[in-house]
């Protein structure tokens, strides 16, 4: 990593010699990224598959709580740090940071107390509302910026678990799906895998607990088959966390090899770390090459203008033309700008349609359910069902929108046909907290009649009956209250009671439907707003990103033209000196370029790091 840092530092030094603040900023950003690498690997799986034990075995320390019953309730991040320490992240009450997300408070805790904070026992259903916990450990495995995230199990009793996991995925560099060797993959696991692959392409599978199941090889083979049907080349690692922990205790390297972990660690280091390193090298090389290219252009034009005065006018004309083209890119009416703004408005319209469509089908199902039975007693169940369906639909829309946004950015980048243009980093798929502003579903009157109410309704009917028939029978000389009139009273009373009951049922059904409808409306309104906001941010981000590139081009070309013109007025004495200076400068730049180029065609083993 050190050589990269040195290279970038030299690049900054070169750039600051010229008057190019923009290039300098870009390189400084590159340097910052280099100095603080963070490769997030998220460990997911259904509950009770041994995710936490797997992380413990990987870092060989009991950091994540393990229990026979459901254990993890809060995501835990394990990363490199010296000395060992732990912090928990709690949202600050009432405080919001600049971009509208709630500010987090980092509270250090003792590493031994961690279990009390993140386990289902110490913190059932995440009662303390922790956002996450972070653990720092001095481990070789973690060096190089690897951080492991232990997530609560998916497919649990409430699918909110799986939503949080999916929400965390776009920010992760890789995902490990843990499933134990007791059985092959189930439908929910494969479904989750498919969904996750759309968000994060680096997926590997871990088959845990191989020490317990004699048939683990058969299960692994079956799983291999299932994975091949999802996508090719998803690696599968059979491991045994307990064996690795035993091995560490007994210092038994043979046992460690049997645990299957060495292969996994190798995968993490070469593939995941290696790949991100390769990516990083590529982007560093890219940054250096383009900055030096910008510098070289100005110096080269000045040099040619100094050494070859005759060709000067033609050169200036060419440069002017190039500058005009660069200007064209900067203008609002440039083709890429149009593509972007059209694309975003299309995207917003499509997204709204998609969201509405999904919500309407949910609403239809809910109304059907309400029509079929009395919504009073089953209201709680219905609300849970409704919330789950809504959450799932919203996350689908988000994933889909994020895919479309990436595609749009790529589309815009095509207009910059010069060298590979880096794409802006977009995060739309993050569904965390989108549903927060939506009010929870209101309470429906369960429709149980109290005894007094029942009597009252019955009485209301029977009163009329008694009176009517009492008067009638009064004609033949019977008293107002007589067996016939009472009988009629009872009959009519019960009829009224029954009618009233039916009317109340119908009213309740109507009320339930209204509640569902207004809830869905609320969701469409709030989620639609949030999605639109995010898409606008994407639009703005993309525009800024590409304008910057266009600006850089413009400035470089402008500088070159100026330099070439300036050369014409330079005196002979100074000219010699200037040529000398430019030549040495160009040699230095050329050196740096060569080194940057050497970074680019990657040797397969980036071993030394």
């Amino acid at each position: 990593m050190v050589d990269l840092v040195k290279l970038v530092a030299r690049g900054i030094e070169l750039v600051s010699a010229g008057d190019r603040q923009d290039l300098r900023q870009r390189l400084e950003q590159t340097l910052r990224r280099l100095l603080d690498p963070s490769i997030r690997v998220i460990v997911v799986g259904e509950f009770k598959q041994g995710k936490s034990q797997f992380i413990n075995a990987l870092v060989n320390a009991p950091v994540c709580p393990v229990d026979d019953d459901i254990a993890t309730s809060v995501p835990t991040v394990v990363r490199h740090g010296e000395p060992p320490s732990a912090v928990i992240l709690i949202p600050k009450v009432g405080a919001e940071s600049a971009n509208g997300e709630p500010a987090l408070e980092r509270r250090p805790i003792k590493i031994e107390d961690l279990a009390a904070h993140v386990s289902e026992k110490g913190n059932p259903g995440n009662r303390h509302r922790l956002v996450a916990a972070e653990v720092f450990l001095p481990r070789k495995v973690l060096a190089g910026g690897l951080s492991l995230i232990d997530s609560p199990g998916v497919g649990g009793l409430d699918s909110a678990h799986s939503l949080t996991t999916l929400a965390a995925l776009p920010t992760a560099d890789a995902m490990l799906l843990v499933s134990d060797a007791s059985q092959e993959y189930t439908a929910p696991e494969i479904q989750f895998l498919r969904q996750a692959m759309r968000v994060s392409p680096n997926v590997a599978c871990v088959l845990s607990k191989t020490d317990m199941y004699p048939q683990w090889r058969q299960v692994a083979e079956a799983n291999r088959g299932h994975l091949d049907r999802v996508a090719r080349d998803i690696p599968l690692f059979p491991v045994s966390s307990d064996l690795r922990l035993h091995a560490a205790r007994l210092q038994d390297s043979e046992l460690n090899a049997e645990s299957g972990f060495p292969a996994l660690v190798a995968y993490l280091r070469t593939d995941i770390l290696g790949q991100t390193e390769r990516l990083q090298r590529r982007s560093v090389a890219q940054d250096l090459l383009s900055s030096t290219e910008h510098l070289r252009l100005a110096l080269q034009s000045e040099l040619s203008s100094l050494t070859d005065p005759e060709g000067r006018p033609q050169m200036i004309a060419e440069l002017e033309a190039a500058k005009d083209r660069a200007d064209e890119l900067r203008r609002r009416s440039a083709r890429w700008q149009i593509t972007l703004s059209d694309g975003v408005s299309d995207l917003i319209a499509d997204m709204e349609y998609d969201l509405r469509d999904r919500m309407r089908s949910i609403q239809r199902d809910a109304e059907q359910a309400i029509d079929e039975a009395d919504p009073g007693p089953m209201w709680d169940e219905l609300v849970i069902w409704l919330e789950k369906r809504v959450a799932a639909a919203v996350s689908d829309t988000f994933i889909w929108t994020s895919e479309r946004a990436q595609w749009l950015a790529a589309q815009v980048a095509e207009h910059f046909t010069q060298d590979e243009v880096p794409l802006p980093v977009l995060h739309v798929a993050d569904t965390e907290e989108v549903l927060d502003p939506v009010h929870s579903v209101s309470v429906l009157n369960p429709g149980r009649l109290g005894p007094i109410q029942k009597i009252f309704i019955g009485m209301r009917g029977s009163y009329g009956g008694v009176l009517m028939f009492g008067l009638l029978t009064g004609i033949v000389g019977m008293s107002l209250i007589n067996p016939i009139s009472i009988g009629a009273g009872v009959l009519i009373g019960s009829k009224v009671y029954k009618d009233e009951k039916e009317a109340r049922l119908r009213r309740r059904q109507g009320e339930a439907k209204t509640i569902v409808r207004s809830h869905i409306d609320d969701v469409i309104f709030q989620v639609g707003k949030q999605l639109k906001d995010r898409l606008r941010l994407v639009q703005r981000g993309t525009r800024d990103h590409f304008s910057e590139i266009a600006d850089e081009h413009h400035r470089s070309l402008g500088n070159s033209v100026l330099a070439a013109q300036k050369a014409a007025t330079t005196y002979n004495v100074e000219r010699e000196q200037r040529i000398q200076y430019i030549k040495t400068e160009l040699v230095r730049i050329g050196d740096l370029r060569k080194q940057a180029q050497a970074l680019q065609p990657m040797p397969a083993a980036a071993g030394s790091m």
Partner: protein
Amino acid sequence: MSDATSSAVLELVRDAADVYRDDPTASRALKGYALRLEEPLRVAVAGMVKAGKSTLLNAIIGEQIAPTDAGECTRIVTWYRYGDTPRVTLHPTVGKPRALSVARVDGQLTFDLGTTRAEDVKRLVVHWPVKSLREFTLIDTPGIASLSEDVSVRSTRFLTPETSPSGADAIVYVMRHLHAADLNFLRSFRDNTVGEAGTVNALAVLSRADEIGAGRIDSLLSARDIAERYRRDDSLRALALGVVPLAGLLAQSARDLRQTEFAALVELARLDRNERERLMISVDRFVRFTDVTTVSSEARVALLNRFGLFGIRLAMVLIRSGVTDSTALAHELARRSGLNELLNLVSAHFQGRAALLKSRAAIIGVEALLRARPRVGTERLAASLERIQANAHEFRELRMLATVRTSGLGLAASLAAEAERLIGGQGVTPQRRLGLADEAPDAQLRESAMTHLRRWRALAEDPLTDRATAEICHVVVRSCEALLAAHVKGSAGRVTARLVLGPEPPSRPGEHTHD
């Protein structure tokens, strides 16, 4: 279940058959219901893939006949019923049933379907001469949430069909942990069999309990705690009558522990502690070649497949703590596996209610038929159907049980628990209803029933009791009376009961169907 109700249901089915005599589909269905009333209760074993359904089935049957494997194994709904000679019949979706050869590998049956594809098979029926099948017909179903969707569909179609009563009268639901898929399935099974007369007729089994604590020796204790948590979980309470942990593999294999296996276990148990621990560290180490023991690798693989690492560990502990012969070991393993507890629950909830559960299937079937194909004469049938439902006290108990489990009774917690027990929430034997030990003498039963009867009657007649509670009280009082009637010869108990019961609340039209 009183015989009167049983025969009334049979009568109803016969009448319906008479009305629908010229409708071949309806006749066939009705003939099926009539037959079903006379057969043993149909208990299906259902659950997610690889939850251990077939293993559990073997454990209940007491012989290892249902095929089990590391991969997904059961792909066809398979019925196990009693027969004097072993026999396997294949019922295709179209065409006539045909007999398959009875082939066994290592005791397990293998089904050779020949040229028939699994999707064209409606069910396999195995007749087997085992005592336990005289009381139940056990039905093995393919796992739900399977990756091969058609397999899961076969299960759901059989257990929760859209228009007819479920193919099973009750289910034992096998799960490893409570997943959303489990809850959904149980809910649809309940809602399907509910119709108007809602009830809960599923038992949940926390299977593979030995694997819960990574095969540690205290795994079963952990499993017990988890089962206890699920028992209190409201969503599951509404769907299952009880939850028991079960180490299925142990239960299955302990029932036919062989002498050679016992000898091997004894030898392993006598090994030096360090060597033993080194051997037990993982399954791969356990079966690998070693010279510390004369038990061959193959024998160890067989042991592992039959008992699992946990079973072997447990057996070794038992042997070292003084179990000396194979019968005692088998007995102890079976006891610890949790099988007895499960069998007790099955008999308490299903066997005692067998006639009732079977009648329910018939009633729902007839009801669906009347609704789908009304014709001349069906009004009469509908009326007698309603009469049966309203009059049979057992149905009222079932309905109330469902209410207790789903929305609660609105009584104080201790009263609600007592009411639930008295109407048969813990099992239908008098001892279980009264919360007494299973061997309690008659005198004690009578006395306890009397005490309960008095208390509930007093509550029913209390002027401060609201109407809903009073109705609950009446059901409970009826249950108490039934208990007394069964145990008091002569008429003394009944007479007092009728004297104090007071007038029935005036029945109002429409009430029974809406409660």
